[in-house]
């Protein structure tokens, strides 16, 4: 057996633990900044914070200082472009964007978005890395939220506007979309699975980037994020979930 690939994973929010778990399961050696200490000899670094861009910026800059210049810095671009993240660093050519929504094991495809500054060899390494996880990849142009997180977030946003306007009850909105359009989940239930903070960071990021009314976040979404009602992971979102065992919730109503 070849020696495992070492990956440094940083990120606050639901994606940090999810990526660590996924990589460990696939046989990668996962380290945090603290564990890696000074002797950084990882082959890849991931930064997967989405909801707090100040923290993301600090982490990315720290990683950029610590890591040898040739090591790819792969960053999620749900809330910000890869080009902007690259602009925070001294070695922008090594930064490459990617992203999807949780749960990671469900989707079989990861989107990769190179920054304007990304070196082609870094892009190639990013594609190899995600293929090694057993995922297909699509390389798309760099824009906030990529393709799947962006489209799903806007569907969820529209469902929340309809909810705010009392057009229908949450269960009826979800049932309508599942039965009327064959979606795998109703949009509100889907938001609870993905995490409302993640959904909000995509829509708010698009709104900030494009400066268009089209991407206005539904006010209730923002309020629920502020209230900490982030969905299944915390037991409460558009529905409530009963704690089954630690860290595991079952849908209650």
């Amino acid at each position, binding site marked *: 057996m070849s020696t495992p690939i070492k990956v440094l994973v940083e990120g606050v929010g639901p994606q940090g633990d999810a990526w660590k778990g996924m990589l460990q399961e696939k046989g990668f050696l996962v380290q945090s900044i603290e564990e890696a200490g000074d002797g950084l000899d990882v082959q890849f670094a991931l930064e997967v914070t989405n909801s707090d861009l100040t923290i993301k910026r600090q982490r990315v800059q720290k990683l950029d200082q610590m890591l040898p210049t040739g090591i790819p810095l792969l960053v999620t671009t749900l809330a910000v472009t890869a080009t902007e993240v690259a602009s925070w660093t001294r070695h922008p050519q090594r930064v490459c964007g990617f992203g999807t929504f949780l749960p990671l094991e469900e989707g079989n495809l990861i989107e990769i978005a190179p920054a304007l500054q990304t070196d082609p060899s870094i892009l190639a390494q990013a594609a190899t890395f995600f293929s090694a996880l057993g995922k297909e990849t699509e390389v798309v142009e760099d824009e906030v939220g990529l393709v799947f997180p962006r489209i799903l977030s806007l569907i969820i946003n529209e469902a929340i506007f309809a909810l705010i306007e009392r057009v229908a009850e949450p269960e009826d909105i979800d049932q309508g*979309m599942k039965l009327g359009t064959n979606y795998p989940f109703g949009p509100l239930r889907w938001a609870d699975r993905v995490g409302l903070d993640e959904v909000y960071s995509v829509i708010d990021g698009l709104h900030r980037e494009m400066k268009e009314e089209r991407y206005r976040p539904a006010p209730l979404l923002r309020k629920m994020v502020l209230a900490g009602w982030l969905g299944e992971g915390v037991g409460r979102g558009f529905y409530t979930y009963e704690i089954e065992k630690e860290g595991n919730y079952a849908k209650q109503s």
Partner: protein
Amino acid sequence: MEIKRVGIIGAGTMGAGIAQVCLQSGYQVFLCDANQQVLDKAKGSITARLQKLNQEDTLSNLNLITQIVDLASCHVVIEAVPERLELKRAIFQELAQVCSDDSLLLSNTSSISITEIAAGIPHPERILGFHFFNPAPVMPLVEVIVGYQSGQEEAEQALQFAAKLGKKPVKVKDSPGFIVNRVARPYYNEALRIVGDGIASVEQIDRIMTGAGGFKMGPFALQDLIGIDINFATTQSVYQGFFQESRFKPSRLQERMVQAGTLGKKTGGGFYEYTN
């Protein structure tokens, strides 16, 4: 009021499907169309489908009629004529005179405000939207649309009637696109925007939405199936209904395709080429 007799106006795609659903649920059905040939064709297709299901005995409950006045004894009437406000209003005016005051008068409209259809018609509380999906015998959803003047009790009756038809109804306040056509808009519209902005190709987006998102069909393959003209018309109607709210702004790319007549599978090409 116990519902026994159901009238259906318009024996086209939707009317014929709805008539079949009502027959299968044991109702006396009065299927009305202005055109006798359409009625005969509808009867033929209903017969064929019921035979396949071994339920042709219910055909004895099917009555074909050409005059709205013959719907007088119906407890429920479902209107499924073409999507034109004035036509629908004229039909509801006539129904209101012919049918009893406690009958339920339902419209299968997919985009016209039920409030506007019911305006000025005697006893508007009995008028509701009753939105089936195509094909009606297969799709389980019915959106029950509660207009500004619709009664709450009547809405409950309509929900119960939908359940009796074996459908899963949802209750929706009258607003543009109701639930499904409204909340589904970004699936098409944002995908079109992403193509327009050069972020990803049609094929890539379809692969991403099925591969990463678990959707059964990508937004472009789905538009080809639905018909790009139909999809564009729905977007325009929701956009107008929301007083040109920018979230619903139609796509120029889609408009060009409608102008070009490349409408999807039915014309042999849309976002993809089809050969048969």
